[in-house]
């Protein structure tokens, strides 16, 4: 059976349920450790059907349905249940961890009128609604019908079967776009089948293997890479909530150890998670871990750090972790998920390049023997595969770059999604790029800069000015909007939030003009504190550095546009004209 021939995910679900019956599909560790909640393939289909028939009492074809509950078996059933009913699920952030505004804008943008939730979330959500005095917020929330899902009530045995075409939208993935203008990627059934097929093929998955995951199911990596891939390959997936992992990162490695009896383990995460495991795992508990069955530890969704990889391998090889298991990968929601798969037969592909030439967009590989202070490690993010066309493009004239040149990564193939929901202009801009040499064929612009060397794709940074923090993309404009609210001494439109690579990690720097040339120290401290506070409460992070500069000194173009990259250079070279800070005068 070639699974690539399935025309939608529902047919695949029915096929797998009939084939695997009482095999465990999903095991949820409710407490992150021992409290197992089990869902077999048979029950998955049963509940999915039952929920689908319930949903059809309220909804019609193509309605968007918000998934508004914490990661759980119910979350997975809700997702598949919407698909089975021919509805379009919109996976969301659980409400307690995020600022309200992004959530509301996603609800608005999707036009959803119904949300699936659980009892606890429903209560918390209604409480929040009262706290928020914003009229618009209340109005919007009161229009949403909340359906709380309880497996004990899903006993209806009606078999729902909707005819769904390959090109129909399966779900909306909100990952990109600014807070005020969120963009929902329209992922079709064909995209899901194609990309899942490629993941299975190039990860070499089989149904004796076990996935271990704590990744959020409202992001493509957790949803497609783990939840859907488990179904596609007929595997078993053991999972916990992201909260369980963040509270005790060792739970991830313990789960891998404990479930190795099922088979070889496939488990991945963004770079920071590997970094945390290195820093927070006490050497004394290494003997409780056995990571020898961990076949692929994929590392994706934020820049991969060379030091993290080497530290992780060094530390955990003592528990049987294999160096070749560490696999950087590359993907993005606009291409469903995967672009380049792991190179799991080899150790991570690292090359040293000339740093100065790199800055000018040229890749010059330095031999090991010539390594010096000017050499910089670049990490291969996996091999280019035949099914996905990858082009490195010089965006000044839309021509293909020569070998050894940096350019924007463009993609074509059946994994490229349909575009952004209700956003024709943005869809045109991102999904309809043409090479000068061929104006017939359109490409997806990834916004990422990269190069190809010996068949491997290397990611070098971003064309767009987005800032990535913990694997999530932020638009500087969003951050600036809040910085400007922090104090009346900050000059609106005369500053920027920029991302700067420090110690191989992207750090947020805030650079703003103030209204006066001179301030006393305590005033400056207060303004800085309120910036940190407002960013923390809105986004959950704080800036690495805040610099205040003299009025009218922020670099702008003649048309008044902010020159962020130039400002970045001035910051790095310490050439910004900072304000004068005087000591307190006590009279």
């Amino acid at each position, binding site marked *: 059976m070639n699974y690539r021939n399935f025309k939608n995910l529902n047919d695949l679900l029915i096929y797998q349920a009939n084939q695997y019956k009482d095999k465990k599909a999903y095991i949820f560790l409710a407490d992150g450790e021992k409290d197992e909640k089990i869902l077999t393939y048979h029950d998955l289909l049963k509940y999915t059907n039952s929920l689908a028939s319930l949903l059809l009492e309220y909804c019609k074809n193509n309605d968007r349905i918000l998934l508004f509950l914490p990661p759980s078996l119910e979350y997975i059933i809700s997702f598949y249940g919407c698909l089975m009913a021919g509805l379009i699920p919109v996976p969301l952030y659980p409400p307690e961890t995020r600022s309200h505004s992004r959530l509301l804008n996603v609800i608005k943008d999707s036009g959803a009128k119904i949300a699936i939730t659980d009892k606890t979330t429903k209560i918390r959500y209604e409480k929040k609604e009262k706290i928020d005095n914003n009229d618009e917020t209340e109005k919007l929330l009161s229009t949403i019908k909340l359906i709380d899902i309880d497996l004990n009530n899903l006993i209806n045995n009606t078999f729902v079967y909707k005819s769904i075409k390959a090109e129909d939208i399966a779900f909306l993935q909100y990952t990109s776009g600014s807070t005020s203008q969120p963009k929902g990627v329209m992922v079709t059934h064909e995209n899901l089948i194609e990309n899942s097929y490629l993941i299975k093929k190039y990860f070499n998955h089989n149904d004796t293997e076990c996935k271990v995951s704590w990744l959020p199911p409202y992001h493509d990596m957790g949803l497609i890479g783990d939840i859907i891939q488990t179904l596609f390959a007929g595997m078993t997936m053991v999972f916990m909530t992201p*909260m369980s992992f*963040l*509270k*005790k990162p060792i739970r991830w490695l313990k789960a891998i150890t404990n479930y190795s009896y099922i088979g070889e383990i496939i488990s991945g995460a963004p770079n920071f998670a590997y970094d945390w495991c290195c820093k927070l795992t006490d050497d004394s508990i290494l003997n409780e871990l056995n990571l020898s069955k961990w076949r692929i530890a994929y590392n994706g969704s934020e820049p991969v750090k060379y030091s993290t990889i080497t530290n992780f391998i060094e530390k955990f090889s003592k528990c049987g972790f294999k160096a070749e298991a560490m696999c950087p990968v590359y993907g993005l929601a606009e291409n469903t998920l995967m672009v380049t798969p792991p190179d799991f037969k080899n150790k991570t592909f690292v090359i040293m390049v000339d740093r100065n030439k790199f800055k000018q967009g040229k890749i010059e590989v330095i031999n090991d023997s010539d390594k010096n202070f000017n050499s910089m490690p670049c990490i291969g993010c996996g091999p280019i595969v035949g099914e996905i066309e990858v082009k490195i493009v010089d965006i000044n004239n839309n021509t293909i770059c020569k070998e050894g040149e940096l350019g924007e990564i463009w993609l074509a193939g059946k994994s490229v999604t349909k575009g952004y929901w209700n956003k024709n202009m943005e869809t045109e801009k991102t999904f309809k790029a043409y090479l000068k040499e061929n104006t017939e064929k359109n490409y997806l612009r990834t916004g990422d800069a990269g190069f190809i060397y010996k068949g491997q794709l290397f990611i070098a940074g971003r064309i767009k000015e987005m800032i990535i923090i913990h694997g999530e993309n932020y638009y500087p404009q969003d951050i600036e909007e809040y910085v400007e609210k922090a104090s009346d001494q900050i000059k609106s439109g005369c500053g920027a939030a920029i991302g700067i690579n420090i110690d191989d990690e992207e750090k947020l720097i805030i650079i703003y003009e103030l209204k006066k040339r001179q301030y006393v120290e305590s005033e400056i401290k207060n303004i800085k504190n309120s910036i*940190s506070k407002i960013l923390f*409460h809105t986004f959950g992070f704080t800036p690495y550095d805040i610099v205040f500069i003299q009025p009218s000194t922020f670099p702008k173009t003649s048309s008044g546009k902010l020159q962020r990259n130039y400002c970045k250079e001035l910051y790095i070279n310490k050439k910004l004209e900072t304000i004068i800070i005087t000591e307190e005068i006590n009279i």
Partner: protein
Amino acid sequence: MEINNIEQYLKEKLTEIKSMDNQIIDIDIDEPFENYGIDSIKAVYFVGELEQIFNIELPPTLLWEYNTIRKLTNFLKENIITKT
């Protein structure tokens, strides 16, 4: 745990979390956590550590609500007393 111990424990924990970023800091018990560069995922880790040492369940948003060592110490003191 005595009140001073809780405070001391929180100070040490904060120092430890900051050392993950290779930063060494001076700690002021009235300084909001966000000023130390504690982001949302580190805040959740911090809460996880507190849950373990005090053996109580805590909301992941705890550090938003009690955003200094002093406030957090008082909160923990009250809750541990009510519990026992």
